């Protein structure tokens, strides 16, 4: 341990900590526009400067390691003036109008300028050129607003292992983006939106669907249904001042009803449906491999996360056969709403508008994939992020905190706890195992609270194995088999687990979620998502799961109903048509 003084407060931190870490421990906030927790400091923005006794000049606290006996001042006249100067210089280049910016009131630069007391622009000079890249369905980039902090470069390269963004050029003319001024649509961008989640300003944002949704709601000829992803209920509250991890399911339903949606349904319902299909698919693959001795692609990968799908299409096309053919719950919902439900209410698919609320930007991309129209029209019409829904509720003048609770509508609104945990890393796997184990043995998964502890939590790559015993006669071939499962979240971790597999490690089933922490840490969630926030949202999701009477997808009566009335059985002909899909190699 190293002890040092931050503003005369003695603090002890482990060797190798930075001054910024030490200050946080001592209870002092140092502003920074570029730093990301657990990542190698870049020292790009220079806002975090502090005075260190004996040092020749101010020191960037995010990058400077602590030393024994160091005396640090985080708030002196020199520090304040230097920080102000740096931010004034950033503002002088920044080409954007706060009033009309997507990040107005949610902008770190704006907030910092305010707290530093910057009241006029001292430096009038050349501004950055604003080049808008709206080439992709999910993300919009504006080079004029970029402050070159490189957070997006860090997440895109070091966390996601995608590498579509990097610093280009030099000096005033430098930009952050793909190679040689290509736009995002031309490069292997998976649309995960983690760049938009960490951007301190409005340089990368999601493509806004709010206006289109209002238009649909205002159209008397359209029947507008909404589905909300599992991760929304644990994060939407943050848009209205609630602590991270506050469950607002009931208020959310009320708000959606006030906004004018004709039916409030739940992506959780199709999460349960996914488990029925994907679990059965896994068992079929295992049977083909173990009984028929057929060559079959194992391990099976989950397919809920559209960023992961696109990542595999770019970087691991040789594993596309391993990915479950199940559509994601969002897309299953779209095709079921415009067929099964359309028939029930006597409407044509083209008169129904399906709006999704997702924690995700890649879902905007997924919704417009050309193959996602099995109902005859585009299955999911518009995708709002959690942030966009928060804004719509504000636009409508709804006092969210005062809303009473309401319940989802039937028959696409009921869900089990297994569906809730689709929101976080390890959840899809646990949900699948709860059902698969029971199908095979006829008994409930023999684990406390039905949780598979080794695959819970924020460890990047998690593994578990489960011995199957007491099988029913038709599943006898699985007697004594150790079911080996792997879980990765953050695409960099997906890469690690695939490399481990290539090196010979054996798995039967692997869950991949694109974003760190899973969907609760998605690119469309309220900012700013730290690990602490991820943990709180995950706790809330597990609480939602444990609080439900129904904990397993196959127990959901509305799921039983859709198979009885419409689909027949998992992997039926109709299921294949409406609930399954295929993937394409995008490797060039």
């Amino acid at each position, binding site marked *: 341990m190293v002890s040092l003084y931050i503003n005369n407060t003695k603090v002890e931190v482990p060797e190798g900590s930075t001054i910024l870490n030490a200050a946080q421990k001592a209870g002092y906030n140092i502003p920074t526009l570029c730093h990301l927790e657990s990542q190698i400091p870049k020292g790009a923005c220079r806002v975090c400067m502090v005075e260190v006794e004996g040092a020749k000049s101010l020191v960037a606290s995010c990058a400077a390691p602590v030393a024994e006996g160091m005396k640090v001042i985080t708030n002196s006249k020199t520090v304040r003036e230097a920080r102000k100067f740096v931010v004034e210089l950033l503002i002088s280049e920044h080409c954007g109008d706060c009033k009309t910016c997507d990040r107005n009131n949610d902008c770190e630069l704006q907030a910092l300028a305010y707290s530093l007391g910057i009241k006029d622009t001292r430096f009038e000079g050349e501004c950055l050129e604003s080049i808008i890249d709206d080439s992709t369905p999910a993300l919009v980039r504006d080079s004029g607003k970029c402050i070159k902090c490189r957070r997006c470069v860090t997440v895109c*390269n070091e966390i996601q292992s*995608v*590498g*579509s*963004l*990097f*610093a*280009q*050029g*030099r000096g005033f003319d430098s930009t952050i*983006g*793909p*190679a*040689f001024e290509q736009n995002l649509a031309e*490069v292997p961008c998976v649309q995960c939106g983690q760049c938009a989640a960490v951007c301190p300003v409005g340089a990368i944002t999601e493509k806004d669907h709010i206006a289109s949704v209002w238009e649909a709601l205002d159209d008397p000829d359209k029947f507008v249904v909404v589905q909300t992803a599992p991760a929304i209920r644990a994060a939407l509250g943050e848009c209205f001042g609630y602590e991270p991890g506050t469950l607002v399911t009931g208020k959310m339903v009320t708000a959606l009803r006030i906004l004018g949606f004709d039916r409030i349904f739940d992506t959780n319902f199709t999460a349960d449906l996914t488990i029925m299909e994907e679990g059965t698919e896994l068992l079929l693959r295992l049977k083909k491999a173990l009984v028929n001795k057929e060559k079959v692609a194992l391990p099976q990968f989950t397919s809920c996360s559209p960023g992961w799908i696109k990542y595999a299409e770019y970087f691991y096309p040789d594993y596309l056969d391993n990915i479950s053919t199940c559509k994601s719950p969002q897309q299953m919902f779209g095709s079921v709403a415009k067929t099964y439900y359309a028939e029930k209410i006597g409407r044509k698919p083209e008169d129904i508008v399906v709006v999704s609320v997702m924690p995700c930007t890649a879902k905007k991309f997924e919704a417009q994939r050309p193959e996602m129209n099995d109902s005859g029209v585009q299955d999911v019409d518009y995708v709002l992020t959690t942030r966009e829904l928060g804004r719509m509720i504000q636009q409508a003048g709804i006092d969210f905190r005062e809303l009473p609770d309401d319940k989802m509508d039937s028959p696409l609104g009921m869900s089990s706890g297994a569906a809730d945990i689709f929101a976080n890393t390890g959840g899809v796997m646990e949900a699948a195992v709860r059902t698969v184990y029971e199908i095979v043995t006829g008994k409930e998964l023999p684990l406390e609270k039905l949780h598979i502890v080794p695959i819970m939590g924020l460890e990047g790559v998690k593994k578990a194995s489960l011995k199957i015993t007491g099988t029913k006669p038709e599943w006898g071939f699985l007697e004594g088999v150790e079911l080996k499962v792997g879980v990765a979240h953050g695409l960099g971790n997906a890469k690690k687990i695939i490399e481990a597999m290539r090196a010979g490690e054996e798995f039967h089933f692997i869950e991949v979620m694109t974003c760190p922490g899973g969907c609760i840490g998605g690119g469309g969630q309220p900012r700013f998502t730290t690990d602490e926030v991820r943990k709180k949202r995950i706790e809330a999701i597990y609480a939602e799961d444990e609080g439900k009477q129904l904990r397993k997808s196959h127990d959901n009566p509305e799921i039983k109903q859709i198979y009885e009335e419409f689909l027949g059985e998992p992997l039926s002909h109709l299921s294949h048509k409406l609930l399954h899909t295929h993937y394409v190699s995008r490797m060039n």
Partner: protein
Amino acid sequence: MGEKSAQQEKVCKCHDSISEEQYYEQLDDIIDQHIEKEGALIPILQSVQNLFGYLPEAALRKISRRLNKPYSEVAGVVGFYSYFSTIPKGENTIRVCLGTACYVRGGKDVLKALSDELKIGVGETTEDRKFSLEVGRCFGACGLAPVIMINDEVFQKVKPSRINEILSSYR
């Protein structure tokens, strides 16, 4: 657009288009020589630029793939160092010094005369790929200002009226 494709056509017909294909065979050798070392990217880019005279897109994509580095990162390094160029260079590189001494003694006029004569701007290459025009910051020959260099040869006290005579031996 029409103009551009005409230009490309001309480039394809030029003298070293065949040898460029042969260069690609050597590209793998260059990468093999460096690939195990840390920080291999910059030395590879240097050697590859020496080979081709510039950094063609296909070569950069290959470097990106073999080094397992994102193309955006390779492009970022190429764009950071002014030494690297993705534009084909002419047979002869003309560098006009615009250091302080050359500047005050008419270096800018010399540059303008060259630019007018060759019909290219700074950083560009003539359509016949004979000449590329660049600007330098002091060649350490201030007593001879204004100075230009063509390849490794230095020309001193250059006047705009002498440009044609100087260029003629390279044409």
